[in-house]
């Protein structure tokens, strides 16, 4: 007879096992391979791989492109965070605490774009936002405004691609956050309302911290998934251009690997990217988690 604590442990491992199995096969193993490849110069098919040690990494850190791409990545992250984390948070608060009528309508409608693929979204927006002849341009023309050619304007291109991506992410993040926000006990909000606490303070001091478990999820996912999502419009619309002005870490790794066929460099880049992200996660665990409120 096993004592019950051991039994519990076995059950725990069994519960994790299915996930762990697929992860080992399709995540950890490829990851190890990629790490291995990052030390070679190779194009994926040549019979010989040349071992180059840390050259790929060294080259990366020397290449100004790396910094440009990382800078872009940061810009994407910032915009995505504002549009897809902060904004839906505020919106869910407004819907759950401020507005009385029409909630249901907004809740269901705002989610709709989320179901659409970004390939579709990209094609659509390429048309709609065509600065010469798209619907938006037509309206602008009527108002006497000439739209900038965003797909070729550095900086602006990042903003527009982020908006296209946000169009898809926003609704989903919104309902997830809404779930978190509605999980905040109404009595607690009432207690604050009684104190005549202004809405924005209720939001910042009570709703935000109390729903922060969800908030953290959305925060992390906005960064991670946001960047992966942005990949599609980049690929469909700009291919990283103009002059790498819209490339981000994910797209750049893709470009290195599948456009330029530099497997080693691509691997090294992907590993560095991941390293940065994991660092972010560690920081998140170290600092942000402290402020997160959990019941257990």
């Amino acid at each position, binding site marked *: 007879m096993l004592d019950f604590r051991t039994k519990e442990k076995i059950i725990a491992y069994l519960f994790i096992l299915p996930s762990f199995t697929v992860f080992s096969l399709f995540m950890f193993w490829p990851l190890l391979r990629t790490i291995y490849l990052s030390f070679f110069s190779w194009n*994926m098919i040549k019979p010989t791989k040349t071992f180059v040690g840390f050259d790929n990494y060294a080259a990366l850190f020397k290449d100004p492109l790396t910094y440009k791409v990382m800078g872009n990545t940061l810009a994407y992250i910032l915009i995505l965070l504002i549009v897809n984390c902060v904004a839906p948070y505020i919106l869910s608060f407004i819907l759950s605490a401020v507005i009385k009528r029409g909630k249901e309508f907004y809740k269901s409608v705002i989610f709709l774009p989320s179901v659409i693929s970004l390939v579709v979204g990209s094609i659509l927006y390429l048309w709609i936002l065509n600065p*010469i002849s798209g619907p938006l341009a037509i309206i602008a023309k009527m108002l006497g405004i000439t739209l900038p050619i965003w797909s070729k304007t550095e900086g602006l291109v990042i903003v527009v691609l982020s908006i296209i991506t946000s169009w898809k992410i926003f609704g989903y993040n919104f309902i997830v956050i809404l779930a978190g926000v509605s999980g905040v006990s109404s009595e607690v909000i009432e207690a604050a309302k009684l104190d005549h606490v202004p809405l924005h303070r209720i939001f910042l001091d009570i709703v935000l911290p109390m729903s922060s478990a969800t908030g953290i999820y959305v925060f992390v996912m906005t960064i991670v998934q946001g960047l992966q999502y942005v990949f599609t419009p980049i690929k469909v*619309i700009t291919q990283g251009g*103009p002059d790498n002005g819209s490339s981000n870490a994910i797209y750049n790794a893709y470009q290195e690997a599948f*456009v*330029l*066929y530099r497997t080693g460099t691509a691997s090294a880049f992907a590993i560095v990217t991941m390293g940065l992200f994991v660092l972010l996660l560690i920081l998140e665990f170290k600092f942000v988690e402290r402020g997160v409120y959990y019941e257990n």
Partner: protein
Amino acid sequence: VPGSQADGGQSAAKTEKIRIEYWHPNAETQGGQTVEKLVNDFNAQSETVEVVARFNPDMYKGLLQNLQAEVATGKSPAVVQVGWAFLDYFSNNFDYTPPQEIIDTYFPEDKNFIKDNFLPNILDLAKNKENIQVGIPYSLSTPVLYINRDILREAGLDENGPKTWEELVAFANTIKEKTGKYGFYMQEPADNWATQALLESNGARMMTDGKASFASEEGIQAYEAYADMVVKTKSALHISWGEGVQSFIDGNVGMLFTTIAQRANVQKGAAFDVAAINAPSWQGKPKRLPAGGCFLAITAQTEEEKKAAWEFERYLYSIESIAEWTKGTGYVPPRKDVATAENGLKQFLEENKMMAAATTQMDGVVSWTSFPGDAGLQAEQVLLDTRDQILGGKVSARDGLVAAQEKINQLLSQ
């Protein structure tokens, strides 16, 4: 005619046909249906071979990407459609069999098929640096100039369009002044195909003796003329390919310089008086137009498959098939006789005047330069980035090209 080997092949086929894969990037809008038809017809008439066609999205790059992955697993399709730009990379990295080798081994009756049916300059397009015939040209495209005659007329210009780049610049500027619309758009995909046409027609060369040489005075001058339209007079558009074509089709741009492969798309969508004319030349200089399109390469691994691959190719290169193919895609046929044959394209070409723009400039066709070696693709990317820099007004054409050339040569020498 059949030798003992062919016998063996046939008896084997009685029991089961040999299956081979044919990889292509032809979307439904670009010959996908024709591929399907040709493959079905072939399968119906062949007793030995069963071809399975696989569509690869994202054009030749996408195809190569998938091929890369497939080869990594140790497998390979039998016939692949390779874009000209990847000729060098393909021949350097993939295991292929020159078709003549297969013919010589198994199909003595086809011994002269290639020589007889293809012009030498066309065949040369599919030769690599080592002069090996990597595959056989399958489709050819050249850049042509699409014009919106309504706009030209509105601007008081010759509705037959410009003949030279010098005229084109003047046209574009006039259109801008007179109509407020953009005069000109030159395609901006992820390659330098059209740029090559622009520069080389002015006497520059993308490469000389294995080194980049586009930043010659001629090259710079040509590029400057183009860049000035975009940056200075703002009469030309600097925008992504899709948006640019869209803008031409919905009547916001006077002239569009892009591949003949867009013909069907332009023709279907445009609601104005649209025409396609020969690519402009530079005053007094010969045109040099890079060949677009693709060749078919045989990547079959087993002898059986190689044989089957050729059987299939032979079918695809028949006059009827090539005619079918051209109709479905808008490419220029690579094979002799097709244009004039009754069972070929005679009638089709008469009805589709826009095709003439391409078929009548085949004498100017040169191979599409791809930078050699492992760093070739990277070099290509450098030139693309330079394009954005110049057209974005960040650097002058001169500085941009010179810097790019230097950088590319450095890459190539590694």
